[in-house]
Structures are given as structure tokens and as C-alpha cells.
């Protein structure tokens, strides 16, 4: 490009390469065919951006049928937000699709060539594949040092932050930077935040479902990455817009400013249709040997509160899952026990009882359910031993299944998903994987055992109950009569109705209760289980905990006007 003229408002550049080529052709008496010249002209016509605002990319993307809110978001980011935005849709509304549309649009218009996409490690392949397959964007997953040379690189944030990688990134200028799960950049004191802040970029998209979790500061920090000064200096931000850590003031004004850098679509805004959830409870009565085992383990735990709490907790939960899982843990415990001790004798006697369990009532029920569903089912369990047992058990009953574990490498996870899609009726999974794979083609979930942490249950449901699920979702829970599990299910299902909650709601409730991610709730439950002497007391305590959660839910709804500053 050479400068042709400098006008008051803009310079005019021209590319003169073609003149020389023309000269050469003429002197060699050479020409291109007229038909090709016409085809070339038609290609230009097809590829040109006819309008500043219109989304050109939609017609080029037959593999994507975007939802109206996604198209609207992409349009708005380009024409009003000037290409720097926080995409803050609630989980499951398709932020990735929105980012893909925006990226594709800029690429078609020739405004973006060099792109850096930073995502959690578990999502690198998924992003790469979606961009290639759905958007025909030739993205490369970062694997080797030379991968950085590619025009469009998808890398994990943790890999990118290593000095040798960061130095390469910082030596580049990126037409577009995309960061997924951007809530990891909430704290400006962290290395991650500072690194991202140093990257040279033209357009920038930050994707997060939770732009504000604990404090309005987080929002300030995210926006500063995009447009420093949008909210004024930090001090004036505090002065003008923050009443308390989580409570904004001058809401209207703040909202107006935030609307210029952030778009948040919510389920209840409509336009997005969601299928219904149906919750089924399967009641199981333990057989006599199973009951003996359960009682033996429960007594054992009660009498040995001096032992390693973690293994006791595990044991207590495992005994509701399968005798196999219990067996493995007990055998492991034996390794740390003094030989010939009373403890060793006790453990051996439980092991003896566990050997008397010949038929697993729950597994029998599971086979019944799977057969009656007669469609794809995901069975979730917390334990590896249960998983292995179930796979064998299902195979024995001529039901094809694939395993799925958090420990699988990325490629293997994808492979198992494909196998499940094409060959198997059942997937037996130990991990819901917070940011993992999507399994919308399946609409049945069985919670073979219940995690004590409700967040993990929500993640399980989130695998199938998301955008793109076209059928109603069925959730099957086991309730084993007269066990802890019965109480947990009562708490989660009857008391707080968690299976009916919208995704994301539970997260806010637990945060409100100062039990972030639900881990504290787990230990609370354990305390209740051990601290009570009889069933009546246990029920009362569980009810009390349930009331606390319900109260938090109510408070949250009352406050939602002030915490959720966006609507």
C-alpha cells in the first residue's frame, strides 16, 4: 500500500502492484481468460462488506444456526461496543457461538488476521474444533513453540503464562484477543491479570458467566483490561458507584456505562426456549447383607472419630454407592493399621460382611431403569470402584457402556463421547467436568450415588440440560431407605428443591452462605451426621440446614435488585 493522498480526515492508500503485472502481461502478450476475470469480479462482489453494520458472516456459516440473542449480541459488539466487550451471558446461552460470530465477521471484513484465544486447558481442543468445524476458521491448538507462529492460536491460559511463552505473546500484536472463563482475571494483583493487560490487542472479548461474584472490584478490573477509564479512576469508581463491596450506587448511571462494554443475556429474558426437567426418585430397600454392611460401617465410623476424617467421610458415602467401593477403601485403610490391633480386627470383620453381599439391589434397579428408558443414559457415580463394577454389571446384562473419568486425557474424553454417541447406550461417568464436554444428544441422567456437594450435582445436570437440548431432561435419583443418602436427597430435593433450580442459582446461594463452591456444605453435613445421636435429631438438623439455605435463597431474591446490577 502506498499513500495516494492525505485528506483532512483520512489518508487514502492504494496498492499499485497490479500496474506492474499489467505491464508485464502486455509486453509478453499474455492475458487471463475473460471468464476468470468475470469470476474474479463476482468473487470480489461476494466477499465485500456492503455495509458498516450488517452481519455479513451469517450467510457464510451454514453450519451454525445462531439463536436471535446471539446474532443480536454479535451485531451490538461490532457496531456499538466497538469490538471490545465482556460477553457475560448466563451459563449455557452460547457465549462461544457469539465470540465465533464476532471473530468470523471481523475476519471476513479483513480487519482481523492474527488472533490469540486463551481458554482453560480442558477447552483448548473444543474451541479449536468448533472454530474449524462450525466457523471454518483455521484455528490451531497450541502444542509446540512454533504453534505461536500460526495466525489463529488457541492456548491454555496456564501454558501461556509461562515466561518463555509469554515473551513470544508479548512480542506480537494481536488483531483480536479472546479470553474464555475470564472471571479468572478478576484480581488485578495476579500475574494472569497483569500478563493479559500487557498483550497488545486491537479487539478484545472477555467471556464469563459471572462477571461479579464477590465484589464490584472484579467488574472494575475486567473492564480496565478492555477500556481503562471507562469507570473513571479506581478511586472515583469507589466514590461514585460503590456503596458496599457488593452493593452499587447510582445504579442507573453505572448500568449505562457498563452497557457500553458488557452484554449479559439471561434465560428469563425470553427468546431462549428451555426444555423442562423431570425428577424421578427411585426408592431402594437394602437386602439383609447390604443392611448389615451399612450398619457395620456406620457404627465403625461413629466409634472411630479419631481416625483420618477424610477416609471416614469417603467410607460413609461409599457405603451408599457400592460394596465394591467400600471394599477398596477398607483394604487401603488396612495398610496403615497396626498388625494385630483391635482396629485391624474390626476392619477385617467389616470386610467379611462385605463379602456376604452377593446381589447389589441398587444395580438391579439401575438395569431395570435403563431398560425401561430404552434410550441413551448417563450414569454418574463418585467412585472409580463403583464405575468399574457398574460397567461389568451392565455388560453382564447386555447393556453397552463407555467409561468417562476426569483423569482421561483430552483426546480420550472426546473419543469416549463419540463412542457414546455412536455405539453405546450408557456412559458411566465419575466426573461431570466443570468445563468439559457437551452431551446434549442425551437427555437422561441417573445419579447412582449423590455427591454431598450440590455444586457437583448441578454440574452433572449441566452436561445435558443446556442450549441445544431439544428434549425434556429426566433426572433419576436413588433413595436408599434408612441411610444417609435418604437424608441428603430429602435435603436437596424436598427441602431446597435444587433439581428445579436454574443453573447458576445454586452457586449464588452457596456464595451467599459463605460456602463457595459448596465444599463447606460437605463438611457441615458430615458434622451433622456424626454429631447427632438418633434419626430424629438428624432429621431436625438437616431441616435446620435446609432452612438456612432457603433463607439465603429468599434473601438473594430480595437483594437481587442490588447485586445483579445489570437488570
Amino acid at each position, binding site marked *: 500500500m502506498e499513500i495516494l493522498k492525505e485528506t483532512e480526515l483520512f489518508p487514502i492508500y492504494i496498492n499499485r502492484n497490479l500496474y506492474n503485472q499489467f505491464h508485464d502481461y502486455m509486453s509478453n502478450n499474455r492475458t487471463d481468460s475473460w471468464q476468470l476475470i468475470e469470476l474474479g469480479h463476482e468473487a470480489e462482489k461476494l466477499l465485500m462488506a456492503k455495509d458498516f453494520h450488517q452481519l455479513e458472516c451469517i450467510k457464510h456459516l451454514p*453450519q451454525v444456526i445462531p439463536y436471535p440473542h446471539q446474532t443480536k449480541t454479535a451485531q451490538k459488539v461490532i457496531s456499538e461496543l466497538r469490538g471490545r466487550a465482556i460477553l457475560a451471558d448466563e451459563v449455557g446461552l452460547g457465549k462461544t457461538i457469539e465470540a465465533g460470530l464476532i471473530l468470523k465477521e471481523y475476519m471476513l471484513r479483513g480487519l482481523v488476521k492474527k488472533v490469540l484465544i486463551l481458554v482453560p486447558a480442558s477447552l483448548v481442543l473444543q474451541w479449536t474444533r468448533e472454530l474449524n468445524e462450525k466457523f471454518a476458521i483455521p484455528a490451531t491448538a497450541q502444542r509446540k513453540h512454533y504453534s505461536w507462529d500460526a495466525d489463529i492460536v488457541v492456548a491454555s491460559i496456564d501454558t501461556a503464562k509461562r515466561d518463555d511463552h509469554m515473551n513470544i505473546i508479548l512480542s506480537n500484536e494481536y488483531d483480536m484477543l479472546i479470553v474464555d472463563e475470564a472471571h479468572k482475571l478478576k484480581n488485578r494483583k495476579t500475574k494472569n491479570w497483569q500478563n493479559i493487560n500487557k498483550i497488545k490487542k486491537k479487539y478484545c472479548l472477555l467471556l464469563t458467566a459471572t462477571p461479579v461474584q464477590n465484589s464490584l472490584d472484579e467488574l472494575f478490573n475486567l473492564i480496565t483490561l478492555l477500556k481503562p477509564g471507562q469507570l473513571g479512576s479506581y478511586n472515583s469508581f469507589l466514590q461514585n458507584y460503590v456503596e458496599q463491596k457488593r452493593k452499587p450506587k447510582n445504579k442507573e448511571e453505572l448500568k449505562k456505562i457498563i452497557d457500553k462494554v458488557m452484554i449479559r443475556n439471561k434465560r428469563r429474558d425470553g427468546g431462549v426456549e428451555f426444555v423442562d426437567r423431570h425428577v424421578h426418585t427411585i426408592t431402594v430397600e437394602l437386602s439383609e447383607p447390604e443392611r448389615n454392611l451399612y450398619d457395620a460401617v456406620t457404627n465403625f465410623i461413629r466409634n472411630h472419630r479419631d481416625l483420618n476424617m477424610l477416609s471416614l467421610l469417603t467410607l460413609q458415602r461409599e457405603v451408599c454407592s457400592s460394596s465394591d467401593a467400600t471394599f477398596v477403601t477398607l483394604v487401603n485403610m488396612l495398610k496403615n493399621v497396626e498388625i494385630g490391633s483391635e482396629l485391624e480386627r474390626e476392619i477385617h470383620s467389616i470386610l467379611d460382611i462385605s463379602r456376604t453381599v452377593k446381589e447389589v439391589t441398587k444395580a438391579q434397579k439401575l438395569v431395570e431403569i435403563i431398560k425401561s428408558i430404552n434410550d441413551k443414559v448417563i450414569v454418574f457415580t463418585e467412585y472409580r470402584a463403583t464405575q468399574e463394577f457398574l460397567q461389568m454389571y451392565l455388560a453382564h446384562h447386555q447393556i453397552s457402556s463407555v467409561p468417562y473419568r476426569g483423569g482421561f486425557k483430552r483426546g480420550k474424553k472426546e473419543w469416549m463421547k463419540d463412542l457414546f454417541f455412536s455405539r453405546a447406550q450408557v456412559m458411566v461417568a465419575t466426573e461431570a467436568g466443570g468445563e468439559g464436554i457437551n452431551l446434549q444428544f442425551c437427555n437422561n441422567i441417573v445419579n447412582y450415588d449423590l455427591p454431598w456437594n450440590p455444586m457437583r450435582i448441578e454440574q452433572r445436570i449441566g452436561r445435558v440440560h443446556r442450549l441445544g437440548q431439544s428434549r425434556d431432561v429426566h433426572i433419576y435419583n436413588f433413595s436408599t431407605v434408612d441411610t444417609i443418602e435418604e437424608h441428603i436427597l430429602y435435603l436437596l430435593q424436598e427441602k431446597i428443591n435444587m433439581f428445579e433450580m436454574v443453573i447458576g442459582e445454586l452457586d449464588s446461594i452457596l456464595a451467599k452462605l459463605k460456602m463457595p463452591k459448596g465444599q463447606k456444605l460437605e463438611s457441615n453435613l458430615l458434622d451433622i451426621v456424626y454429631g447427632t445421636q438418633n434419626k430424629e435429631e438428624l432429621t431436625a438438623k438437616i431441616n435446620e440446614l435446609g432452612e438456612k439455605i432457603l433463607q439465603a435463597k429468599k434473601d438473594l431474591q430480595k437483594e437481587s435488585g442490588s447485586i445483579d446490577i445489570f437488570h
Partner: protein
Amino acid sequence: MTFSTDHYVKRYFEAVNSKILSDKNSPIFSVKIPMDVDKELTHRPYYWMYIESLGQQPEPTTLHLAFDPKVDPPDDMDCELITLGSIRFHNILNSARRRGKIGKLYQYFPPKSQLSRSILRPYLLINMRVSLIADKTQDHLYSLGINLQSGQLYRNFYNNVTMFPLTEVAPHESLLGQPSISFESAISIMEEDLCKYVTEFDNQWAAQASHNMMEEIGQIKSYYDSQLVDLQKKLDDITNNLADTSQSEETVEQNQIHVEISNEIDLLNFEKRQRIDEVKWQFSPRVEISPYSMVMIYMV
């Protein structure tokens, strides 16, 4: 305008001399492509390097293309669906752009007509894309022609000229008028008009982009400056303190803080510059003109 990928792709393969294997009405279009076309449509440089190093003449590739997603190809056929968005189709578009740039055309008259003995005047046609670029873009296709004898300019030349029957077959040399204007001066006359053409556009887009740019730069400046002022004040205080007091443990500590604040100021200044550069990069309005085809046309 409805665009038919089907029609476009078939015309393309005819134009690049590929052998069409399928029936005219077959739902799957099969075509054997020559090596040079293959190189432009399939991205596999290592394969070609390998073939060339062996000095082999590879069997030409056959492509099977479908344009309707409802088409169900036989299991053993490697058939691909061509849509507006597919990478293959974009390769085809780009190949056509690369191969269709420079030509020579003559007004066609039926051999027996009186006009077939007329002298044809030389014109130069340039087709170009004019892109208005800021943080957003808009493209215009523009076509300019010049009579190489009189120097007269014709806007929208391509559409006007293609209304006449044209041929690639040259008439007898004696019928071709000679240009009296050099190529260089023709170009400079045309470029002068181009500038005029561009400034005739509504400037709103550029004014708006400049306005947005200034707004963003202002915001960045005030954000960093407010911090820089505070830090500078702190720094000055320390400098004054240091001047007042004599050597002590305290001064060592103060010196340390002094260095830290100076570093922070440098960092902020660096960041501020970078953010401003980014905004300029993003918003600075400019116009880029890219000629994509040039044709000599001889007409009455």
C-alpha cells in the same frame, strides 16, 4: 441477489480446464483437476514438496462436490458439501481472484456487418475495491475506464462495457487504434479521479471514527494521568524528605520506596502509551484502494 454456488463452481472448473466427469444433471459434481489448480484448492504443501522431490507425475485428484445437503452420496465416495462458508469454496473464490486479473477484449461484430471494418479505440479498464476502514469497514466496488486516445474518463465502466458483445479474439491489427496517452499518464489521470471519487463519499463514517478515537484516548489519558499525578506527588514528597534528612536507616528505606514509585510511574506511562497506540490502530480512519483487475478494451 441470489448467488448460486453450484453455477459458480461449475463455471470455475470449466474456466481452469478441468475435466468434468459427472453427468450434467447428476446431484454430485465430479471433476478431475490439473495439478496447478489442485495446489490452489487443497492446502497440502508438504505433499507437493514430496512429490516434486521424487520427480513423480501424480495422478490428478478427483473432487466430488455436492451443493445440496440433502444429497446422499454413496458410502465409498469421498464427497464434500460446498456452501458459501466452506473453506473449499473460499479457496475456489480466491483462486478465481488470483487467476482472473488481466485481460484484453475487443468489441465483437458479426463478420458480415458493416461495422466489422471499423477502427477500434483503446480503453483501459480498472476494477477496484475501495475500503473505508476504521474500527468497522465498508467496501465499494468501483470501476473506472479511460479512453487512451482522448483521456476521457468513464465511471462505472465495467457494467457499461459488458453490455456490449465482447470477444477475446483480436481483429486484424490494422483495425486497432493506437493509444496516444502513455500508460503512466493514464494511471495518474485515473488516480486523480479516484481521489475525487473517494472524497465525494459522505464523510460521516470517518468523522465518527475520529470522534470515537478522541473520546477513547481522552478516557485513557484521564485514567492514567490521575494515577500518575498522585504517584508524582508521592515521589516529590519523598525527594523533599530525603533532602531534609541526613543519612539513616530510614533514608535507605525511603530510597527504596523512591525507586519503587519511579518504576511504577514508568510502567504506567508505558501502559498508557500502549493503550493509546491500540486505540489509534483500531480507530484511525483510512481508505484503501485495491485494484483487482485491469483490462484493455478495444471499442468503437
